[in-house]
């Protein structure tokens, strides 16, 4: 796997630096100038990338109300935004947070399992409707997702599931049979000889999947789960259509969006920022811990040639 190499490349670079041959002074000067320019550019880029993040964090601790103040750093600091946010009854952020957490945990488990098993079946087994299924999935993926949201809404309504968190879970996991590309690409790179040996020893396809493929696919399992887990935190459209005005069942995406609409923005802007920190920080920590799996996932699908 190429990506494992990539992760370790930092170390190899360091050793390369130690054995660097001596250069003539003019080349070295040029190189130093280049390095300085790059440092400057990187610093500017970092500032641009960090300012919005810093701004959110600072605003979340700001005591002055209102959406816009002329100073970047708050004049008075407070924790009341956080306290107010979690105790808020008009905008029940606490409920939204746990709604989203619940939905994303359940749909993460369901869709990770479905995606991986579909990917395994398509990668390893050969059956009549395999190719049609793959082409079909490719075509379905090209319809704008929420073109069908109204129909989904009425179907869920017909089964009596609207304004219910299970509706969201169904919505987020039902399509997981279509998102097999990356994991299938990864499974394709696991040597066939492994599962053939197991098959000769009498293992069933189910056992090969559980005992051979899964243990060898750590990064892709984590990647699939991470993507599935993060989806509900980001989705605004479907959650909005399905939940409607039942604000106790909202997810954080709808809730926070409502908080900064025209009528509420003055009163709730600092609480909105506190909410952003509360949602953003856990996801950020999760993402940083699993970052290398993410890269392995994205390139593992692409770097299969």
């Amino acid at each position: 796997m190429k990506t494992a190499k990539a992760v370790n490349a930092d170390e190899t670079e360091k050793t390369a630096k130690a054995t660097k041959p001596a250069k003539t002074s003019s080349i070295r000067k040029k190189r130093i100038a280049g390095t300085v320019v790059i440092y400057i550019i990187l610093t500017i880029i970092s500032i641009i990338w960090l300012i919005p993040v810093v701004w959110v964090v600072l605003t979340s601790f700001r005591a002055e109300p209102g959406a816009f103040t002329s100073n970047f750093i708050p004049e008075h600091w407070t924790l009341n935004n956080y306290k107010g946010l979690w105790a808020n009854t008009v905008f029940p952020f606490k409920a939204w947070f746990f709604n989203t957490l619940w939905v994303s945990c359940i749909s993460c488990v369901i869709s990770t399992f479905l995606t991986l098993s579909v990917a395994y079946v398509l990668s390893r087994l050969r059956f009549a409707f395999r190719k049609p299924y793959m082409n079909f999935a490719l075509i379905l993926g090209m319809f704008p997702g929420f073109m069908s949201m109204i129909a989904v809404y009425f179907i869920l309504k017909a089964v009596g599931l609207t304004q219910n968190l299970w509706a969201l879970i169904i919505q987020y996991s039902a399509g997981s049979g279509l998102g097999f590309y990356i994991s299938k690409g990864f499974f394709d790179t696991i040597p066939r000889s492994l599962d053939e040996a197991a098959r000769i020893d009498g293992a069933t396809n189910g056992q090969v999947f559980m005992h051979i493929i899964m243990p060898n696919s750590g990064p892709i399992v984590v990647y699939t789960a991470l993507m599935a887990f993060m989806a509900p935190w980001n989705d605004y459209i479907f959650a909005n259509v399905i939940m409607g005005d039942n604000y106790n069942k909202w997810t954080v995406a709808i809730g926070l969006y409502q908080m900064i609409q025209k009528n509420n923005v003055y009163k709730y802007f600092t609480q909105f920022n506190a909410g952003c920190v509360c949602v953003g920080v856990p996801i950020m920590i999760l993402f940083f811990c699993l970052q290398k799996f993410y890269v392995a996932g994205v390139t593992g699908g692409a770097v299969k040639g």
Partner: protein
Amino acid sequence: MEKDGKALKKEKVSSLPKLTFKDKEAGSYFIMGFANFADHQIVKGFIFLATEIAYIAFMIMKGGDLLHGLYTLGTKKQGWATEPGKLLPVLQPGDNSMLFLLYGIMALVITGVFIVVYLVNISSARKLLSLRRAGKRPNTFSQDFRSLNDTNFHGAMLTLPMLGILFVIVLPIIFMILIAFTNYDSNHQVPGNLFHWVGFTNFAAILGANKLLSYTFLHVIGWTLVWAVIATFSNYFLGIIVALMINYKEIRLKAMWRSILVTTIAIPQFISLLVMQNMFSMYGPINELLVHLGFGRVDFLVNNATNARIVVLVVNLWIGIPYTMLITSGILMNIPSEMYESAKIDGASPIQIFFHITLPYVLFVTAPYLITQFIANLNNFNVIFLLSGGGPTTTDYFQAGKTDLLVTWLYKLTVNNYDYNLASVIGIFSFIICAVTSLIAYHHTASYKREEEFQ
């Protein structure tokens, strides 16, 4: 591969004997599961038979009406009528065209599922016939059940996902495609009103019959394509350049620079976009800074179309560069250093090296990613909707703003305007654009052509 699959299937089917009416298994043509009963597969036969009975019962009791409803989409309009013996008129519920359409499609889907079960039943009968001729015993139900974990593993694993896809994705898509051929717009809302089949009227309206609509459509589609091309390639190239800078030998603290950028990936997009919207607003921090520095306020998003378009593209860079950086920096490290060395010896300039070594290499590996990104940008709802809301609004357009993409226009038509029929037509066009682009692109990438080779 396509051919292989078909050949395999053909071989499998043709190796089974044809059912003739001399064989008792032919009873399966009329009574599903007949062959299974005859050959001691009681449970399986019972399942087939129960399916048939249930389907016939459904069609007699409900299905016929549902299919007829799909054809008429309702005939009785909601209205006031005075019932005999009552003094005042009472509101009489009318037909709900939307439900007629939805249930009609469901009846069709159920019929489709039934046909599949019927075909399975026939092939099961043929299998039994061949087994009987060969003098072998057919599988018992528990053997069949156990095969789900092995030879029929794909059946076990694909059933649930396929049902999910069928009811939550395919059925709604069929529904919305059919809506494009009706007049289900703001003037024909259920349950107060009926809507009807109108053929290709909506397509004609969008393609030219309705001046305002076709003008809007043309301009929105133009901006969508411009947006997708610029957004995809600017992110891609600038991301690669940032990755190259971080990977430059002399630069220290690589992990730190990378992490700073990755922060933005980790923050849920809707948060960073809503924050950006506030930063660029009339009294937001960026304008305050400009005022402090002695410049005037700049209208970034509200009324100035050009500014708004530039801002969405720039913010999209803020969102997208880290992704490309993260993905390509691993690939960049994989480029064999000998290639660079020999290029340098031959006297290539850094720019030549970038265009002739780095870029082709990265492009080769990330082609599928690039295509996915392009499609995602064509449908990039979040960046536009959460940032500019499609605005600035204009009266030149029908219910669309100057930065609206096809998808956000579709969303507005649906949610604000209830013009479901127009929204569906736009969805279909959006699909066509995506399909054409990605089919062309995928067929030119190596990984698609060589799907079987590396296994």
